[in-house]
């Protein structure tokens, strides 16, 4: 695997600006990128929509998709992209899984009803069997997207296929990282892969096994709609209106993700997105939450926020103590 010096310096500079990689980690990144053997990645897709894979292809902020595919990892199995089909494709997965230390990426939920037959990857291999089998030799397991993390839309009530997330299928597993989102933001995946490859261990995770770097702050606390306040909140009177969307169903007070800062569909390397859900005047659906979608529906109805964690005041708009925090390296617009 090769990376040009120019590309490495560009990536390192971006990482430094983001304040996310220490000097020693950068040195580690260079060593990894210049190594002979690229890290192997096996990417399994179950009961999902492939939206997280499409989202990954939109990666550009940390690295473009082609940079990741050509210069950073050996993507040994991934059904949307791989040249091989049928037996040839299966042989690639089996060969990669025989060498311990790969990163297993799981996208889509795992149906467990009907003996797992609601989702078959290839003859003799259901998604359920594949997740159990292919987790054996994995160094890390990344549950990509809401469905793989916690069941997602595929497990929406009444969950006709008994679909589950990876964590529920594997039980407690120290190698597991959840990257929920519907879809997951490409930066959350590429940033996590970069961390794993440079640090050699899991990043700090919250109680839902989500990286704190991406899921550590409440959407509401970084939302630009709050900048409209001059003491008194301004609430939008209808969708498409100006102001806070809380009473139109926004789940920003229930949701931890860096969407307001990172935004979606980045313009280029090191840049942030062109827009995001609330930026387009539509409410946050809470798509990174373990109880998405059922606990976040109806999407356009108000949901009383949970009590303030620091006990600073009553829950709800009447008594909540607002504290607008803006990270110095990412300015909300």
């Amino acid at each position: 695997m090769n990376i040009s010096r120019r590309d490495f310096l560009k990536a390192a500079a971006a990482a430094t600006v983001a304040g996310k990689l220490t000097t020693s980690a950068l040195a580690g990144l260079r060593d990894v990128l210049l190594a002979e053997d690229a890290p192997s990645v096996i990417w399994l897709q179950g009961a999902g929509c492939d939206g997280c894979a499409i989202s990954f292809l939109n990666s550009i902020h940390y690295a473009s998709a082609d940079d990741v595919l050509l210069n950073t990892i050996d993507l040994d199995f991934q059904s949307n992209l791989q040249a091989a089909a049928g037996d040839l494709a299966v042989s690639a997965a089996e060969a990669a899984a025989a060498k311990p230390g790969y990163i297993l990426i799981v996208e889509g939920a795992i149906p467990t009803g009907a003996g797992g037959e609601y989702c078959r990857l290839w003859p003799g291999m259901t998604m359920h069997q594949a997740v159990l089998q292919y987790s054996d030799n994995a160094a890390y397991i990344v549950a990509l997207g809401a469905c793989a993390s916690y069941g997602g839309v595929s497990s929406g009530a009444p969950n006709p296929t008994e679909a589950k997330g990876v964590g529920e299928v594997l039980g407690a597993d120290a190698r597991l990282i959840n990257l929920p989102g519907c879809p997951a933001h490409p930066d959350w995946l590429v940033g996590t892969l970069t961390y794993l490859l440079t640090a050699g261990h899991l990043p700090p995770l919250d109680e839902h096994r989500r990286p704190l770097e991406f899921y550590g702050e409440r959407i509401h606390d970084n939302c630009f709609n709050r900048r409209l306040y001059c003491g008194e909140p301004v609430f939008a009177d209808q969708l498409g209106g100006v102001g806070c969307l809380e009473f139109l169903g926004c789940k920003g007070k229930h949701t931890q993700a860096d969407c307001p800062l990172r935004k979606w569909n980045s313009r280029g390397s090191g840049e942030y997105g062109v827009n995001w859900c609330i930026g387009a005047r539509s409410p946050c659906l809470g798509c990174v939450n373990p109880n998405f979608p059922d606990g976040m529906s109806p999407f356009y109805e108000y949901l009383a926020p949970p009590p303030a964690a620091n006990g600073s005041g009553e829950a709800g708009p009447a008594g909540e103590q607002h504290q607008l925090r803006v990270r110095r390296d990412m300015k909300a617009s």
Partner: protein
Amino acid sequence: MAKTITIDPVTRIEGHLEIEVTVDTVMGQKKVVAAKSAGTMFRGFEIILVGRDPRDAAQYTQRICGVCPVSHAMASTMNLDNAFGITPPDNGRLLRNLVLGANFIQSHLLHFYHLSVLDYIDTTGLLDQSPWTPRYVLEDMISGPLAAELVGHYVAALEMRRKAHQAGAIFGGKLPCTGSFVVGGLTEVPTAGKIADFRSLLNELRSFIDNVYVPDAQALGDAFPSYYSLGAGPGNLLSFGVFDQDAAGSTKLFPAGTYTDGAPGTLDPAEITEYVTYSWYTAASGGTNPADGVTEPDPDKAGAYTWLKAPRYLHKPHELGPLARMWISGEYTHGISAMDRIVARALETKKLADAMDGWLDQLVPDATAYQPSSIPVSGTGVGLTEAPRGALGHWMDIQDSKISRYQVVTPTAWNASPKDDLDQMGPVEEALLDVPVEDWDQPVEVLRVVHSFDPCLACAVHMVRPGDRTGGSRVLIRPGIA
């Protein structure tokens, strides 16, 4: 000597598909004499949607497919507009068209470069690492400078499809899966700045489409002329029409229409019937229009082998997709084949991208794109549109202000359908007949024909009712063999 080849998983599609072909030597040539295809994943969206707030449908149904979520958003919001009795303002119609158009461009670029072209190029010496290895190498594959050029375009197209999503997200909020499509229009408001940003990206896309994608598609046809005579299928075409040019939807960029037994026709949705002769449903579940559809599983039904119903128009199988749209609009008349599908898709992309520039001009900056409405206590709705792969319809009943029934019929359900009650094959299976297979271990010719339909299996099997059958959601299409 006949040999059965199973390709499972079929890769470079969306979703889970198994193809089984029987190959035999006929008059000295090895070719497909029988074929069956199986969708191997099921989730059950029509069950998951029942009892929910109707407004949520536009978000849930987008998760049917991450490649064409905006098409589902369009069908769903049209369905909701219809049921709620609301018409979006012009800005809403235009913005929906622009976001949908951006995703069409993304999907078609992805399909040609990242899903299809590897069937035709020998990448030895160009892409010698996974996921491009292991690979097939056939004698007829392109090599040398043209291969190198196409590989360069493959990489460039990764950037271009990303830019198409950027453009769509300007008004869609984010892609894939847009939050701004709602009943009554679109929540985002076009500003002069956003319009300029979208146009700038559109100009880049149009340059790539005109100077790279369309020429590459035509070059592929020149290099593989035999595929203009392979993969024809039944030769009937259908479109629901898409990209409304006026508030009533009476004029569309790609009009609705049909082409049946060599004659054009006017689309009448009442003539759509789903058959279940070879499907695991009771006889009472079949022979009905989707608006009246009933789905009672009967997993022990004699002679049945699939969970997919067989959608038919005027009791005949019809192919859907870019070729159908371009044929019905009179823009493409060359022929119906695997290669015609690929070329028509590229030409459709150009027609669409050029039209999008005009839609930007029609936007009124700073004017709302949204019209508020209330959930009816009861009602019905229908939304007919087109996904990149073809006609897409959403049907809904509301009772007590909740969804009581929601049905989706997707293009791949038509294209990959089984035999119907008259034993007429579905388009994909008929298209596979007579396809040559040079090397049993490298059935690339079969992949070329299957890929020409741009199959999306998450869409095709999402709406099947779960049975208790441990065989799961296997769809078997068995043309012409006992």
